[in-house]
């Protein structure tokens, strides 16, 4: 039982970690630190770095939350700790 709880928490932390890595890459990475380099590419009429800071990161944030909610739900079921 103790091991099960540990394994569940480990799987959860791994998922959260993965989500937050993507979260940081799109906003702090693409949107801020790499923006000057990405601005050399254009997406439609958008400089790409500018697009990440003012549009793209927001779309990714939404996707991340739904992916997280779905995958965490699966982990809950797998370890049999989901709500009935």
């Amino acid at each position, binding site marked *: 039982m103790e091991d099960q709880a540990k394994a569940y928490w480990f799987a959860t932390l791994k998922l959260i970690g993965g989500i*937050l890595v993507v979260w940081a890459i799109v906003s*702090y990475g693409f949107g*801020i630190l790499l923006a000057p380099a990405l*601005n050399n590419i254009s997406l439609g009429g*958008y400089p790409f770095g500018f697009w990440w800071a*003012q549009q793209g990161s927001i779309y990714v*944030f939404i996707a991340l939350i739904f992916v997280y909610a779905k995958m965490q739900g699966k982990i809950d079921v797998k370890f049999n700790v989901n709500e009935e």
Partner: protein
Amino acid sequence: MSLTFLTYLFVGASFALYIGIAVWARAGSTSDFYVAGGGVHPVINGMATAADWMSAASFISMAGLIAYMGYGGGLFLMGWTGGYVLMATLLAPYLRKFGRFTVPAFFADRYYSKSAAGMAVICLLVASLTYIIGQMTGVGVTFARFLGVTNEMGIYLGMAIVFSYAVFGGMKGITYTQVAQYCVLISAYTIPAIFISFQLTGVPIPQLGLGASLVGEDITLLTKLNQVVTELGFGEYTTALPGSRLNMFVYTISLMIGTAGLPHVIIRFFTVPTVADARYSAGWALVFIAILYTTAPGVAAMARYNLHATVSPEVLTSAPLVAEGAGLVYEDRPEWMKRWEVTGLLAWTDKNNDGKIQYYNDKSTDPKFAAAGWQGNELTVNRDIIVLANPEIALLPNWVIALVAAGGVAAALSTAAGLLLAISSAVSHDLLKKIFIPDMSEKNELLTGKISMALAIVLAGYLGLNPPGFAAGTVALAFGIAACSIFPALMMGIFNKNMCKYGAISGMAVGLFVTLFYVFAHKGIFFFKGTEYLGLIGGANSFFGITPEAFGAIGAGLNFLTAYIVSKVTPPPPEHIQEMVENVRTPRGSSAVSGAH
């Protein structure tokens, strides 16, 4: 129909709608207003959360700031949306499982001490009060314009209206009222944006219009805007930085973790039916918020372009912008400029006595401005008026302008009233009843709640007359305060079983103190003008060029560090607390939160 009549009609009709729904929903349920979200579908709860969250700062102020900041304004966009990812993954599901109603109540249990709860109340009060000052700034702008009075008078009227709205009370908690507010607010924001995007680029979706070419020209909107603003001596729109890249980075962190630490947002996730719903609710809230947040950059860039095209008619003919005799003849200015002049938020002084408006960055050292006979920037435009003036600048029909008025009023009132309720319950319930006067009667609890609301609004109104910044900037300070104090203690309460009360309390104290010390140095002690002490910290932004609005992230780092070190050298939390944390981490066994508050 006249604009004034239409404005009263739209504002009046939207109010009648909110009150009607409130009355109807009241009759149908007996549940306490604190459990507003209970039994509500995550999509509906998400929409209500979005209405709660998007205040005067998001609606009225943010796009105006982005219009002036350009690329750097992205920090508001990323900061105020990215925080939801933190909220969904790090806090919401666990706090829902924990099953307490308010943030101080969580602190009281998790950190097994009244002092921790008291500390949380202090942090919450400082953050909420700062937040309300920003709201009052926005309220003042809105009422000044739509009642045709000065900004000051607008704030006085706003104070009276917000106070009566908050005392009316329970409205705030009724989910369906907020759904209605969201609908009014989002249509008021997107409809003019669609009009303007279509006018300028032929693409009706602002998210795509911002990246499109101008109608009848072979140049993209952003490229043209870059040309116009750089020719007038401003920083390039698509690359301009807020101070430095480091400052933008830290500022964004501060807003993100502040979002996840603001009590009036967290509270929403305490009351959804299940832990799984708490996760999805955060996602739906962000979907509805993103509709406004992805529209805002388009509104910002297009408003900036339209403003320059209005005061420098040369923009449209591609003649040189900076030349002798360039600029709009003041007597020919459009009606909207005259309307805003009444409020004092837009003003013109003819520095070179040529009867024309020269609007440029006079801090630029380029000699071409002096050579053209320009003797300084002649037009001041308060950034907080941009969104409200936007449909007027684009010469849209009167009903669109009236609709924006209704949206602005909804945004300002709902959040200001919500914050006042949070303050009143923190003072009367969490502080007085739980800590100091346990046997206080319910009647007195209600009375002290109302008194603290009245005090809060008078103080916020007074400080709003001389605000520490534009609405969104002041609100950013509030986020910094939530970031440096509440978020770290909440997160460690869940993710670090060994975090004890000594660590949490000292962490919050250090984070809050250091952040306030830096902020007050720039903005005055408790934001009172004239009490700044910049000399003491070695000048403005002396800490690696970090602005006070961004400093909350540094405070949060110190909070984490202090808490960690102190928890290593003090006794760990008792066994039952550690078991409680274990239990919070799994969803099973979550019970409905009871209405007992």
